[in-house]
């Protein structure tokens, strides 16, 4: 079983594709769920507090806006944990989205530099491209399986 980071990190479609193959998708929702279940914190809607953008300093300097650091405090640990990654470029809102271009740039850069298998695909614009993208993702996940079995 391989821990696969996805980008956008809240894409349910990507998470589903990975789960179907028996691997663990590293998704934002799980992190947020942990935060909102914590009764100690009361900062709705996601229980991100002043402390989180400070934790985000591990990934981005103090000159970087608080919104980027707040996002990185949740996405950063997912990237650190990843054993593989699938990045979908140019995805629309409905596919999954973190809302901030600077966070996208930094997260994708960090994933590329993790020295783990990374698949980068462009979001499809028609049905044929969609089949191609799903096949590409499935092949990539299968190859992870083979690698983990070899190990």
């Amino acid at each position, binding site marked *: 079983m391989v821990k696969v980071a996805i980008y956008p990190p809240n894409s349910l479609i990507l998470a589903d594709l990975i789960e179907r193959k028996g691997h663990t998708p590293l998704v934002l929702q799980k992190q947020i769920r942990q935060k909102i279940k914590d009764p100690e914190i*009361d*900062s*709705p*809607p*996601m229980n*991100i*507090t*002043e*402390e*989180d*953008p*400070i934790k985000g300093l591990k990934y981005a300097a103090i*000159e*970087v*806006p*608080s*919104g*980027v*650091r*707040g*996002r990185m405090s949740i996405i950063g640990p997912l990237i650190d944990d990843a054993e593989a990654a699938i990045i979908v470029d140019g995805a629309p*809102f*409905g596919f999954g*989205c*973190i*809302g*901030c*271009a*600077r966070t996208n740039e930094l997260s994708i850069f960090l994933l590329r530099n993790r020295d783990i298998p990374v698949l980068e695909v462009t979001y499809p614009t028609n049905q044929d491209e969609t089949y191609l993208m799903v096949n590409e993702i499935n092949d990539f996940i299968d190859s992870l399986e083979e690698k983990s079995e070899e190990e």
Partner: protein
Amino acid sequence: MVKIALVSCGTEYSGIQKEIEKAANKFGAEIILPEIDLDYIDEAYEKFGFSAQSSSLKLMIARAMAIVEGKSKPDAVFIATCFRCAEAALVRNEVRRFIQNNTRIPVVTYSFTERTKADELFIRMEALATTVTRRSILAREKQEGLTLGLDSGSTTTKAVLMENNKVIGTGWTSTKDIIESAKTAAAEAFSQTDYDWDDLDGIGTTGYGRFTMGQEFGAELIQEELSVNAKGAVYLADCQKGEATVLDIGGMDNKVITVNNGIPDNFTMGGICAGASGRFLDMTSRRLDVDITELGPLAVQGDWRKAMLNSYCIVFGIQDLVTTLAAGGSKADVAAAACHSVSEQVYEQQLQEIDIREPLIQVGGTSLISGLVEAVSETLGGIEVIVPEYSQHIGAVGAALLVSGMGHRQDDK
């Protein structure tokens, strides 16, 4: 309940959503998010024409469009983006302009950090709520009866007694203990008349200490200084009809307010940098060993270009001025450079955010520094700057004016 639409690129990720809601709730307002569907986001974004990379900024644009097109009907709009984000700053400004050009809804903008707390937002939220709910009070053009206005600022406390549309007594003291300072300022104002506390019809309070003073003196009006100063300024400058801009460079923060027929319709409030405040001039006068009242006339005689001032910072800026003096520069040039520096910074940090409407009425204690008034006019391309009589007492005048008609203390006697 006043509905304030939050148009933002993601306050929840900075952990300050709760603070924004807390600030709005304190003044009887609630934060709403203009509801839009996915298809509308692309449609609105295309129509607006700004190619933003961040999808949250696209959402922000779509929410602004929903307000302008009447799909969402808030009473006021609060636009907020992360401090230091260039893309968000561009969109924030364009969205503000778009809403202001196409609606009459009051708008305020803010750039936040994770440290933003509800207290910093109180004055902005209160002013937004006031312009919506208290229009009738803000429409008052004439003072009646005997009223006292108290303004507890960060540096000084001011008191003004008004009777039948005239200022009859003023008081001024540096702010120490809020209540004691207010009593001292009021005593000075009373001493110029034959009246006492018992003769008053009503009391209005404003400034940082407004709640404390209001509770102590049982004030009929407790109001933030944005609305009060704007009202006081147009009243004293006799600009109650038509448009005007009010500029108040204070000891701790600066206010720029645009006014239409006496009612504020947009404002910005600074307070991040001490170098853009009256405090810078206070420190300059101390280093020059002149009284603050002499700094203005001294600056008018000088030429700011002859003094070296490489830093906007209150610490390093003052150091630069000292270096100029050590190199044989004149006090007048240094005073002029200090005034020019403050005016330039106020312009860069705030005035450029607002569409200046002439005339510009400059108020607050710093408006008495003639060198600063001249520097502001020069920075804005030579526009006319009005400094009305009692401009240093502006908050107290505004409070005394607005409370008139609300107090009925003599009726009970």
